[in-house]
């Protein structure tokens, strides 16, 4: 009875509908039985001729109370169990699932594929291939609802949610926003087209304008944001955990709680690294909050996921080719130093990853007022930040570590020559 659910276009739809229909049938049965009993009593025991007949003073029945406590309990346990079992099934992401990113904003859905293909509101997926859609929001709450695929999840700013399903029928299906999001909430509609594998491949690789894929973007950021100075790609331990096979890994925080390195964990680790610290590591990582856009973050996640042991394990070089050519000889030493601070040189990460200019403490000491400053090393000896001290700190940082800092800095021996170091020192002198 009452089979109005939309077409079953995903693999799990049939199972979900099974429990739905079972609940429908049992509900109709009990409603008809109970209301039927009520109407039957109403007719059979109605007051006749305006005079009350004698009624028995029945106050209850322990037996019946037990029956109508136990029977609904058994039914509820069964339905709850099946609901949970099927829910777990439909949340399980198959290993070969295609991943794409969906971002809700007032009032549209933006999609991005691994190939860099971007699309708005209308998107395309191949039939018979499992998919995982990672969903977030750029502004208020939205909710991602594909009725025919039987999936729904809210899009929340600052959080990744996901849906996963395997389309089994080609055709066009509706996408709704089901969380109220303001003026044009009811116009925030889209269409999912399920097409053949070939058609999909053609579509997803057809890019009208040059777009970088999320993985490429993540790879660039890995260098630009100096992730590489602490996170290796080959499994060796740096200051931070290696990114090799990091995605999906489980481990423990220093407080003993366990974690799985999923999207939300990685997001938090990048934006708020010191909230949950992984066992065995020091709180050395600076926060990247405010420095990365949603699309940057999605790029980094895609890149981290791609380091699954199948690709090259060496760190990509800085993409100097993309930087505008600057005639270094026309710059002052301090300006050249600033360039090294901001962009790094060769395989060397830029200094800005760990040293601030505004006095704030990152992984390393701030450059503000550094030149000429007096302080203590970790072994208790005092030092003055002269040219020689700074030079040694750059070339062989592990020799003397300033008090309160971790021995985190990689040596720049062979990366920066004497002239470069002079330039950097000149630059540091200007930061007062």
């Amino acid at each position: 009875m009452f089979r109005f659910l939309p077409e079953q276009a995903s693999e799990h739809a049939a199972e979900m509908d099974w429990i739905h229909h079972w609940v429908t049938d049992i509900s109709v049965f009990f409603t008809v039985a109970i209301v039927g009993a009520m109407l039957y009593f109403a007719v059979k025991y109605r007051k006749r001729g305006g005079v009350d007949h004698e009624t028995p003073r029945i106050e209850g029945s322990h037996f019946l109370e037990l029956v109508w406590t136990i029977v609904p309990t058994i039914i509820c346990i069964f339905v709850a169990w099946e609901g949970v079992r099927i829910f777990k099934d439909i949340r399980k992401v198959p290993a070969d699932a295609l991943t794409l990113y969906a971002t809700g904003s007032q009032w549209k859905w933006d999609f991005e594929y691994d190939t860099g293909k971007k699309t708005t509101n209308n998107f395309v997926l191949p039939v018979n291939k499992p998919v995982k859609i990672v969903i977030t929001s750029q502004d208020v709450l939205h909710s991602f609802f594909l009725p025919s695929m039987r999936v729904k999840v809210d899009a929340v700013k600052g959080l990744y949610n996901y849906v996963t399903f395997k389309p089994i029928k080609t055709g066009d299906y509706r996408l709704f926003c089901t969380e109220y999001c303001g003026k044009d909430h009811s116009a925030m509609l889209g269409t999912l087209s399920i097409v053949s594998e070939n058609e999909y491949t053609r579509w997803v690789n057809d890019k009208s304008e040059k777009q970088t894929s999320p993985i490429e973007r993540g790879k660039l950021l890995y260098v630009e944001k100096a992730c590489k100075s602490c996170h290796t790609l080959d499994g060796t331990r740096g200051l931070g955990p290696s990114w090799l096979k990091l995605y999906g890994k489980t481990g423990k925080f220093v407080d003993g709680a366990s974690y799985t390195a999923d999207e939300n964990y990685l997001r938090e680790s990048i934006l708020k690294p010191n909230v949950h610290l992984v066992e065995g590591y020091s709180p050395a990582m600076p926060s990247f909050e405010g420095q990365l856009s949603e699309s940057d973050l999605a790029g980094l996640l895609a890149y981290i996921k791609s380091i699954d042991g199948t690709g090259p394990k060496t760190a990509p070089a800085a993409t100097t080719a993309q930087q505008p050519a600057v005639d270094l000889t026309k710059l002052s030493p301090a300006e050249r130093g600033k360039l090294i601070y901001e962009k790094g040189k060769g395989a060397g990460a830029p200094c800005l990853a760990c040293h601030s200019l505004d006095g704030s403490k990152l992984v390393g000491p701030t450059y503000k007022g550094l030149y000429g400053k007096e302080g203590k090393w970790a072994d208790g000896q005092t030092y003055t930040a002269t040219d020689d001290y700074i030079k040694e700190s750059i070339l062989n940082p592990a020799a003397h570590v300033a008090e309160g800092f971790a021995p985190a800095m990689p040596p720049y021996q062979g990366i920066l020559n004497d002239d470069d170091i002079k330039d950097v020192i000149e630059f540091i002198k200007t930061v007062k």
Partner: protein
Amino acid sequence: MSTHTAAHGSHEGQDINYLNHQKGLWSWLTSVDHKRIGILYLLSITLFFILGGIAALFMRTELAFAGPTLKFLTPQMYNVLFTLHGAVMIFIFVVPGIPATMGNFLLPLMIGAKDVAFPRLNLFSYYIYLAGALLALFAVFWGVIEARSLEGALDTGWTFYAPYSIDSGTSVTLMAGAAFVLGFSSILTGLNFVVTIHKLRAPGMTWGRLPVFVWATYATAVIQTLATPVIGITLALLMMERIFGVGIFNADMGGDPVLFQHFFWFYSHPVVYIMVLPAFGVVAEIIPVFSRKPIFGYRAVCYATLAIAFIGFTVWAHHMLVAGISDTSAIFFSIITFAVAIPTAIKVFNWVSTMYRGSISFDTPMLYAMAFVFLFMIAGTTGIYLATLAIDVFYHDTYFVVAHFHYTIQGGAVIGLIAALHFWFPKMSGKMYNETVAKFAFALVFIGFNLTFLPQFGLGMMGMPRRYYDYPIEFETLHTWSTVGAFLNGFGYTFALVNLAYSALFGKVKASSNPYNSLSLEWQTKSPPIHENFEEIPVITEWTYGYGKPLPNTHH
């Protein structure tokens, strides 16, 4: 039952009662009499019920056909309408609803007290309520004046979800302030009732003899006292978020928008039981009287009431199963939710069993009570779908939820209130209403209500999302039926209310003190009651539900 009071019916000055012992508007506005305060609440909430209803009819008119239906109504105005409909109906009409009106009027009468424990606090509660309600109206007017259009009134939905409510340019801060103020009225009323039930029961009115309505009011009062502060804090945080930008719900500042939902539903789920538990109590009073039978399973019904109130505190996140809480919490809250279904089922079985071998008459209150059982079966069973995790993934935020919610709150709380108004009308007004008009209105309400909301279950099954100004064409037929039903429903309520109001003011038929031959204490005093309720403090010697011929094994 009470033996003294009924005997003193024909004293000198028998026409002096709570309605006329003092005259003039001022005597009403300053009265600390629980009966008069109940009437004040009743008049106030009726006004807001009409306002909320008008908003609903505008919405249904717009939704009657696909595409823009009303030329002057923009999508944003539609958003304002459903927000005002929800906010007014929930915060200003249903939450005070039965407890503040019937609870105030009946509670002391049912337990044999002269008044509630703190009569002046009771009047103060009413004025806080009035202040909150007026502030809400002011918020609407202020928003409209600022934007020079209805579009500026309040557009967040009654749920005030962050971060939209933080950014919205409408009068959110004022409206949150209004709901904040209204909450205090609810807390103080709850507190007053708890103390009244504990301390002011007449001699012999043991807990085991209390009418089920008193048990329901007790459970409700406990929820009001414990849960309402949470919504107060939540709304205060929302106001601080808007005024000072504290950031607790703002992802940009490290806050968590989902936290708002946790806070909000920690109150707003239990509040559903504030709305329907008293209605359960009403039904449990009406069915025994018109069946001439004791309530079946008195203890089970009372324990079930307390169980629902208690479990109701632990299920809030079932409103958030797809909001981005972890799968583990979703599983937990789904399973706990099923635990509420069981005591609710027990109640339904007991109501129906009460009619077995009764002598059943079909006065209007009984018709509403029987309709309540039917509507609540649908409300309850459709709740099972939403509690089932795998099914809720599909139904969350669709019209299925809208229909389920209205079967619970309109089919439950509102039908319960209308049933109560008819049932206790003779006691409150001292008159009888026109039975024919009342039955006609009942038929309109029943048919109209089902015609409005049954199609909405169908819409939900088809995947129609809620809070949509417009919709794809495949949803049109069911929407059109739903709109027809809404107007029938509206006419039904109009007939019912006009009938009651007219009968109270101009009715000629005087009510006897106990027209239904009920055993409950409130019927053992005059209609309408005197100011002090009873001429002497009643002494209770029997159970409230001693209908019918005792059986050999009767134990009460």
